[in-house]
């Protein structure tokens, strides 16, 4: 067993940290307040080759595995979750193309994403379809050599700024079994009948773009189908280990940022004639935050490492996601408490961390769903 990072991993982490501190930290508050998408940072991240780090080298990416992606996510989220998510999400949906796409599709879709010329999204949730993914009602019907798509998708990251979306559609309503009959189809945002409605007023991750997508007789060529027709659910499930581990890394990052800010503030802020870090009540909070962040990091790195070994880690990925998101919320909460009144306004980043942390317990499978998965795996029961 070896817990040591390679020199390459250390260098990667260090360079991403530098990028986050120099480029993101100074403008994070502005983008949060104004709820605007950070195009300028995305351009800088593209220059650094930070977009789509897991895209294979032959398609212009860096070909990094889950562990390196987790490190990148952690460093970005330790500074700002909204811009961090904007950066890592430019390739959302690309996993399916990487694993199930044809060579032609990989060239067509992955290369522009790795180069920073295209932004993607994964369109799964609908107004009436959240955790119960099998109730997707967006329809795709074959008409000649085209797919005709109708329906609505909700909470879609990059929805109003994305160039194409991997859309989960029902393609065979008569299929037997609730997980059959769905397909993944790429829909470009410049197709007739495609409309995106930006969702504003989010509690956190406000720099990240979220929208409702409306498909009204949108026609795409049949070669936009990814993988096997009617088998999308099985395709989609393959990436839960990967994507849940990545959200766990988001939680680790937010906890790290909350801890860092608290350490700094507690040593600076003086009350009763000494820094508040001299008080045991503050010291214990900081000790707990650090311990929990370290535990979550180890759980997350282990999950990521196992994903990279090609292991099936349903339970471990859910554990990492559930735990890291929980301690992120706790750490952000304690960070605000340590900052007192100063933590209640956005002069310090912890107010933002507090709002941002919550989403990690909701998206990519809620805390409750993760616990269902863990219990199901432990008890050997079938689907919930």
């Amino acid at each position, binding site marked *: 067993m070896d817990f040591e990072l390679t020199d390459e991993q250390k*260098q*990667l982490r260090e360079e991403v940290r530098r990028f986050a501190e120099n480029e993101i930290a100074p403008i994070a508050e502005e983008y949060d307040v104004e709820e605007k998408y950070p195009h300028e940072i995305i351009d800088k991240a593209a220059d650094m*080759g930070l977009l789509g780090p897991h895209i294979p080298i032959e398609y212009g990416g860096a*070909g990094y595995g889950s562990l390196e992606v987790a490190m990148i996510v952690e460093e970005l989220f330790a500074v700002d979750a909204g811009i961090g998510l904007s950066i890592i999400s430019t390739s959302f949906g690309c996993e399916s193309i990487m694993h199930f796409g044809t060579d032609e599709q990989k060239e067509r879709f992955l290369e522009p994403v790795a180069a920073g010329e295209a932004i993607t999204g994964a369109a799964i949730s609908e107004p009436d379809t959240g955790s119960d993914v099998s109730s997707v009602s967006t329809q795709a019907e074959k008409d000649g050599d085209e797919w005709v798509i109708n329906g609505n998708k909700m909470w879609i990251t990059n929805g109003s700024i994305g160039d194409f979306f991997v859309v989960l559609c029902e393609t065979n309503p008569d299929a037997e079994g609730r997980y059959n009959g769905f397909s993944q189809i790429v829909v470009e945002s410049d197709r007739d009948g495609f409309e995106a409605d930006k969702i504003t007023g989010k509690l956190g991750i406000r720099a990240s773009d979220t929208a409702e997508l409306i498909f009204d007789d949108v026609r795409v060529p049949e070669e936009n189908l990814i993988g096997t027709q009617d088998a999308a659910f099985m395709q989609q499930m393959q990436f839960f280990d990967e994507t849940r581990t990545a959200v766990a890394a988001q939680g680790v990052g937010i906890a790290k940022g909350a801890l860092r800010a608290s350490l700094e503030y507690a040593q600076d802020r003086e009350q009763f004639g000494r820094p508040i870090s001299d008080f045991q009540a503050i010291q214990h909070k900081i000790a707990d935050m650090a311990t929990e962040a370290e535990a979550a990091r180890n759980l997350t790195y282990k999950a990521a490492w196992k994903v990279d070994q090609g292991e099936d880690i349903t339970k471990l990925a859910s554990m990492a996601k559930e735990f890291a998101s929980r301690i992120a919320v706790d750490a952000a909460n304690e960070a605000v408490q340590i900052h007192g009144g100063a933590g209640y306004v956005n002069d310090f980043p912890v107010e933002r961390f507090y709002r941002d942390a919550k989403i990690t317990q909701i998206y990519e499978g809620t805390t409750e769903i993760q616990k269902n998965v863990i219990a199901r795996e432990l008890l050997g029961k079938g689907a919930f």
Partner: protein
Amino acid sequence: MKILVTVAEVATVDDEFEIDGTEIADQYLNADLNEWDDYAIEEAVQLQEGGVADEVVTVTIGPEESEQTIRQALAKGADRAIRVWDESLEGVDLLDVRAKTEILKAVVAEEEPDLILSGVQTGDDSWMATGVSLAESLDFQWSAVVNDLDHDLEDGTASVRRELEGGVEELSEVDLPAVLTIQTGINEPRYASLRGIRQAQRKPLDAKTLDDIGVDAGVVDGSLELTDMYEPESESDATVWEGSAEETAGELAEMLREKGVTA
């Protein structure tokens, strides 16, 4: 054309620190790529991308731990690196300019670069002398505190702009081979790209001893001795306001008024 860039790993100090004898205590120190060298690397890599240079080689005097810093230079686009270290260098507190010059001179003799780029200074020891001293010992032309370099380098000449005191700038032509000491601001150093970081791990990084490059170990015995290190007493405090001019001008006016400054 071959460019040799001198790359140093420097010590950076936390905001709060304590001095222990003639050193800052280890727990307050971090290691980083010397800021000025970052600009020198960027300039060399740009010359290579522009098709002017064929090869960019870095040279560092430093222990094995400095390899992470050296890999940064490789990740940003240098082709290969040379690291010189030796048992005889290990216990040396203060490696003086003469010693650095002798070591670098031996590497130059092996590499035969057309152009040597060196940071104006290191962020820790701040001698500001190594580049120029190296040029003198090699009998190369040199130019110090260069803040603009014409990338033509035609007819074996480098056209440079350099910073003088008092905001004066000077344009000059330097015959190659030459040493240029690079000032911050000459370019905007890039972040190492993810692909660059991957590739850097496979680029050659040759570790050499003094013996390997034909330098006598006696060179490390300097004639300088560090006798004391202390923080100077501050005579006054500076107040820094953060925010836009509109937000902070009033606060400045208020303070000036309090101090008795009147229009």
